[in-house]
């Protein structure tokens, strides 16, 4: 076997240019596929993290049915649980904050616009999300604030108001009670999500409860866990503890299906492309292997006449190919790995129109990020190996039909 391996190794370098071209094809495909994977994982991972941090946080507890209906009748009450200490027993829960969200019509002196009103607890909101934390103008809300709001940048623009101005908000609250009040604009927020900027009106929870006539009530308990990727299992644990009858516990994945779907759609497109690319590599391997075999008919004839069995020759040829494949995979992975290790910490910034485009799609990204996770190599490794082995079937079957006499007669 080691003798065969040695022979195989020497044969690879006997036709150096041909072997190098075959390996070059594999290396090329491996780099393209792993790099695409790296960007895919890197960018979506980063985006998911940003989006989760921005607003939904890792998971939320609602009254069962709220997610689908989003109406105020699916609210929860302060007295239902000892909310303040309920989550203490879960060590992986890092922060909890409550919100009350509903719609209203915001008006200024000159204009009006529909607004998504989010009542927050200023003391704790900052530890579960980022959207209300850092106004680019004015200041964030504090616990003592009353009749104070932060506005999304676009909403403020549409209403033609700035910090220090006031807005009137009109709502149809809980059980159809109309509510209206006057609020001072304390700050303006700009997120990388245009939907948020166009609609968001942030006020203290108490103000929102008063506006909607919902004292002591809220619609969401927002929870930040240890690691947002574990949200699914966190949610399952809490759901079991709280029971499905009264509460729905949703991880971010279920609250924002569009990101998952975009990722899946992108993946689908990528994998179709990978398959075509690997198929082309398969043709290269098939063609070169078959041609080399034809060229070496005489040589194989000699080997057979000195007692080598057809099976050993098949093994030799397969070994030759696998050596090339393994070597090429290793080189491809190494190059990719070095590249992504460097790029990983330096996302390629996305600026100007392209950034606008991403934002328009609701994709909050810092740039094109690369991932060095090992999974980026799984597909190329699997696919290239499979295709190589498949493309050996025909030449090996042909090989079976050789007899030494026949082989030696051919020139």
């Amino acid at each position: 076997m080691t003798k065969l391996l040695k022979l195989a190794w020497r044969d690879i370098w006997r036709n150096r240019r041909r072997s190098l071209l075959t390996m070059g094809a594999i290396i090329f495909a491996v780099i393209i596929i792993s790099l695409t994977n790296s960007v895919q994982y890197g960018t979506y991972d980063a985006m998911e993290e940003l989006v989760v941090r921005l607003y939904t946080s890792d998971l939320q507890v609602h009254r069962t049915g709220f997610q689908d209906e989003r109406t105020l009748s699916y609210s929860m009450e302060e007295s239902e649980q000892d909310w303040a200490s309920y989550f203490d027993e879960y060590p992986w829960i890092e922060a909890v904050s409550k919100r009350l969200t509903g719609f209203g019509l915001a008006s200024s002196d000159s204009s009006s616009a529909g607004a998504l009103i989010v009542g927050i607890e200023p003391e704790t909101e900052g530890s579960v999300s980022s959207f209300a934390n850092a106004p680019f103008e004015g200041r964030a809300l504090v616990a003592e604030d009353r009749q104070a709001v932060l506005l999304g940048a676009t909403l403020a623009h549409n209403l033609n108001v700035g910090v220090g101005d006031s807005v009137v908000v009109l709502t149809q609250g809980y059980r159809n009670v109309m509510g209206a009040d006057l609020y001072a604009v304390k700050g303006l927020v700009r997120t990388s999500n245009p939907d948020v900027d166009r609609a968001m009106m942030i006020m203290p929870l108490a103000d929102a409860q008063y506006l909607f006539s919902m004292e002591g009530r809220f619609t969401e308990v927002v929870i930040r866990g240890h690691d947002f990727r574990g949200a699914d299992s966190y949610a399952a644990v809490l759901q079991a503890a709280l029971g499905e009858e009264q509460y729905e516990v949703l991880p971010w994945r279920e609250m924002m299906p569009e990101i998952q779907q975009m990722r899946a759609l992108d993946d689908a497109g990528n994998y179709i492309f990978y398959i075509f690319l690997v198929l082309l590599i398969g043709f290269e391997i098939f063609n070169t292997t078959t041609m080399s075999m034809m060229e070496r008919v005489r040589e194989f004839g000699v080997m057979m006449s000195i007692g080598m069995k057809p099976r050993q020759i098949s093994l030799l040829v397969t070994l030759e190919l696998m050596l090339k494949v393994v070597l090429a995979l290793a080189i491809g992975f190494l190059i990719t790995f070095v590249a992504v290790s460097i790029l990983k910490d330096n996302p390629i910034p996305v600026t100007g129109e392209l950034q606008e485009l991403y934002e328009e799609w609701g994709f909050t990204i810092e740039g094109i990020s690369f991932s060095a996770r090992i999974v980026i190599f799984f597909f190329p490794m699997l696919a290239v190996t499979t295709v190589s082995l498949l493309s050996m079937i025909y030449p090996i079957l042909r090989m079976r039909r050789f007899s030494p006499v026949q082989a030696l007669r051919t020139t």
Partner: protein
Amino acid sequence: MSILIKIAWRNIWRNPRRSWVLITALAVAVFSFLGSVAYIDGFSIQMIDSAINLQGGHIQVSGRGYHKNPTIRTYVPDVARVERIIAENDAIRYALQTTTPGMINSAEQASGVVITGVDPVREVEVSSVAESIIEGSYLAPEGEANEVVMGAMLAEQLNVLLGEKVVLMANDLDNEVGAGAYRIVGLYRTNSSDFDKTNVYLHLNQARNLIGYTAEQASTVTLRLDPGLDPVETAIHLQTTLDAADLEILTWHERSPLLVMMNEMMNLANIFLVIILFTAIAFTLINSFIMVIFERIREIGIMSANGVRPGQVRLMLYLEAVFIVLLGTAVGGAIAVVLITWWSAVGLDLSAFAEGLSSFGAASVLYPYIHWGHILNGFVMIFVLVLLAVLYPAVKASRFETVDAINHV
């Protein structure tokens, strides 16, 4: 020259298996390129269609600054004059709208919406909302009753049914909040769930009452052009004939610059696709052609001795490559065209990704589209890439020393 074509063509069939593998590889690459172009162009067409059919036609006339900051204070004054001038061109259909942000309330739920007032008779000529009604009917032409048409998804969200009433609220020109109850007469569903959730339609008269516009005021005039009329030229022409400093006349390109850019980006992605696929093929081509020239080294020597110039040797190999590409393109192209034609008839169901797609403003059923210009560009690139790949073997063949080549058996 013709003898070189003859030799090149016949050479392909000396090792048919090898040639067929090359042809198949090229066919696979051509197929995936065409599939991808058709898919992407299908997307573009759909999004452009929706920009034109749902969001303002080929050209939209409004008060100056309206597009950047759409408030009811920016309107088209003396709209009758604008209508008269537009009507001079028979190839333009147009309709007036008033548009205001507002709030919609059902018994249980409220939501922010854009309230658009339309003239139902004219509106059907410029917008596809009327065609998208899936339950009930469009607004009555008279505009005497309090009627509203809304997206089926919005109705679902508000928990209201056809025939039930909703309350619409909006600020009027005097900054007083106006409100009214309207009966739902029609529910529509378009490609875009975002659109459906945020747009409700009233009769123009009702909407003018709500926001305090007179019959001389409108937010926008939406224009739809007959095919053959160029939006950009028409917009420029209108600019001069309308001659009003307080009007804004925008084509769909200007209203949706991101859409235009997205198109460019997707086309760029296609170019990358072609380059990658054909670089992968280049390895196979180079390897095969190197084998080819070494197999034929003697006859190349014979030709050279008989007076074939080095350039003609190269040409012969290029011709062989071109024939192989043509065959691959024909095979891959034929399969692709059949599949794409079938696809674009039945549509490609992407409903599993519906929410994701609608964040692009794209529908969940995609109809691939064959855009010949893009395909032609791709083919030009394919030929260039293939010839580049064959460059090395061809140059090598043309540099063989004649004596060595002849001695080679």
